[in-house]
C-alpha cells in the first residue's frame, strides 16, 4: 500500500459512506451536508487522477453553488424531521423499482463497456489546457449542443420565474 492507494480507499469509503448518509439521515439539512461531503470525496478522486481542473470546478459548481441553492430552499421551507410527510407503501415501492432499474442499467453499462485503461498517475488529460483543446477540437459539436441545452434550460427557468399579469378571475386556475 503506497500513499496513493491509501488515499484512494479513504476517499472511496468517504464517498460511499456520505452517499449513504444522504439517503439515510432524517433531517434534510444533514442530507445536504452529507451530499457536500460526497462531492468533496469525488473531487479528491479527480485530484488523484491529476484532473485538478475538474476537481475544482466540481467544488465551485456543485458544492459552491448548487448545494447552496438546495440548502437555501430547505431553509426557506423550514423542513425538519418532524414535518416530513410519511409516504405511502405504493410510492415507496415505485421508488425502489425505478431506482433499482436505473442502478441495473448503469451497472450493465459499466460492466460491458470496454474502457481504455490509463495510468491516472502519469496522465495529464485532466489538466485545463488539454481539456480545453479536446473540448474545442474533437468534441466541439457535443460541447456546443450541450451549451444550447443549458441556454434553453435557462430561458425556461426565466419564463417560469417571470411575474405574469393574471386577471383576478383566472388566478385560482393557475395556482
Amino acid at each position, binding site marked *: 500500500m503506497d500513499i496513493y492507494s491509501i488515499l484512494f480507499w479513504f476517499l472511496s469509503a468517504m464517498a460511499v459512506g456520505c452517499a449513504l448518509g444522504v439517503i439515510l439521515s432524517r433531517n434534510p439539512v444533514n442530507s445536504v451536508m452529507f451530499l457536500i461531503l460526497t462531492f468533496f470525496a469525488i473531487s479528491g478522486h479527480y485530484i488523484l487522477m491529476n484532473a485538478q481542473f475538474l476537481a475544482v470546478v466540481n*467544488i*465551485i459548481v456543485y458544492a*459552491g453553488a448548487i448545494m447552496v441553492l438546495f440548502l437555501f430552499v430547505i431553509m426557506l421551507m423550514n423542513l425538519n424531521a418532524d414535518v416530513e410527510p410519511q409516504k405511502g407503501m405504493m410510492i415507496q415501492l415505485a421508488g425502489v423499482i425505478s431506482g433499482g432499474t436505473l442502478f441495473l442499467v448503469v451497472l450493465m453499462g459499466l460492466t460491458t463497456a470496454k474502457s481504455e485503461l490509463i495510468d491516472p498517475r502519469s496522465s495529464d488529460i485532466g489538466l485545463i489546457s488539454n481539456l480545453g483543446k479536446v473540448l474545442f477540437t474533437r468534441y466541439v459539436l457535443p460541447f456546443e449542443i450541450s451549451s444550447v441545452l443549458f441556454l434553453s434550460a435557462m430561458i425556461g427557468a426565466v419564463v417560469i420565474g417571470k411575474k405574469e399579469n393574471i386577471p383576478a378571475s383566472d388566478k385560482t386556475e393557475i395556482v
Partner: protein
Amino acid sequence: MLLLNIDAAFVIEKVILISVILMGSLGVAMYATWAERKVSAVMQDRVGPNRAGPFGLLQPLADGLKLFFKEEIIPDRSTQFIFILGPCLAMLTATMTSAVMPWGPDFTMAGRTISLQVADINIGILFVFGVVSLGVYGVMLGGWASNNKFSLLSSIRAASQCISYELAMGISLIALLMMTGSLSMKDIVTQQHGFWKDGYFTWNFFKQPVGFIIFLTCSFAELSRAPFDLPECDSELNMGYHQEYSSMKLGFYLFAEYINMFISSAVISTLFFGGYNFPFMDQVQAAVPSGIFSLICVGALMAKIVGMILFFMFVRWTLPRFRYDQLMKLGWRSLIPLALINMLVTGGVILLTMKK
C-alpha cells in the same frame, strides 16, 4: 516500509511558510479591527480607541481577551452541532485561500530554492474562487442553526447575495484570464513583472480597468462589507446571522470577516496591481542579495494590501447601505451585462491583435 518518501526539508520549509502566513494574516486581521475604528474616528472627527497602549494599539488584544472571557451561550432550541460548525467553517474558508497566493519571488538559501508560495497549482485562481464559494456555508449554516428568524433571514440574504455576485465576478475574471492565458497565480504575477514594458504598463489594472471595477464591486459584496453589508444590516435584522452567538464563536465570525478582507485585498493586488512587483525592480534586484530582494518584494505586496484595506474602510465609512432590491438590480442588471460586454470586447481585441 517507505510510505511517504517526502523530503523532510521540504516539509519543514512549507510548515514554516504556512505558519508565518497564518500568523501574518491573523495579525493583519487583528490590526485591521483597530485600523477600522481609527479610520472611522478620523472620518467622523473623533479620537477613536486611545486608552489601551499608545494610540490604542493594544485595543485588539483587549478585545480578544474580552471575547475569550465572555460566557459561552448555546441557544436551547438550536441545532448544536451545526451551530458550532458555522463559525469554524467561516474561519477555515477564510484562512484557506492564502495557500495559493505568491507572496514573493523565489530566493536561494543554503543551496535550496525557496518559494514564497505554499502551493503553485496550475488552477490557482479557480482554487481561490472555489474557497470563496464555500465561504457562504459558514454564514448560512450558522444563521440557520441559531433557530432565530433574524439570523435565518440574514443567512438567506448572505447566500443569495454571494451567489449573485459570484457570477459577475467569474465573468470579469474570464476576461482577465483570456489576457493572461494561465490560471496559475504565479504565472499571472510573473507576467506583470516590473511596471513598464514595450510602451505600456504591465499591471493588469491598466489592461482591464472595467474588469477591475466589476471585480472590486463584487468583492465588496462577497465580503458583505458596506455598502453591501445587508446580511448584518442592523436596522432591519438586529445583528444578522451572528445574533445568537457569543464569546469566541462570535469572535470567529467577526475575525473571519477581517481575514477575508485581508485575503481579498491580496487577491486584488495580485491579479490587478502586479502582486509583489514594483517599478524599477530589476535595478533593485541587481543591487541587493536575493533574500533581501524577496523581502522587499513581500514589503511591496504588503503595502498594496494595506492600501486596499484602507480603501475598503474609506468606502465603508463614506457610502450609505444599499437597499436589498437595489443590490440585486445592480448585480444582475448592471454588473453581469457589463462583465459580458467586457469579455466580448476583450476577446475581440485579442483576436484582432493576435500575431500568428
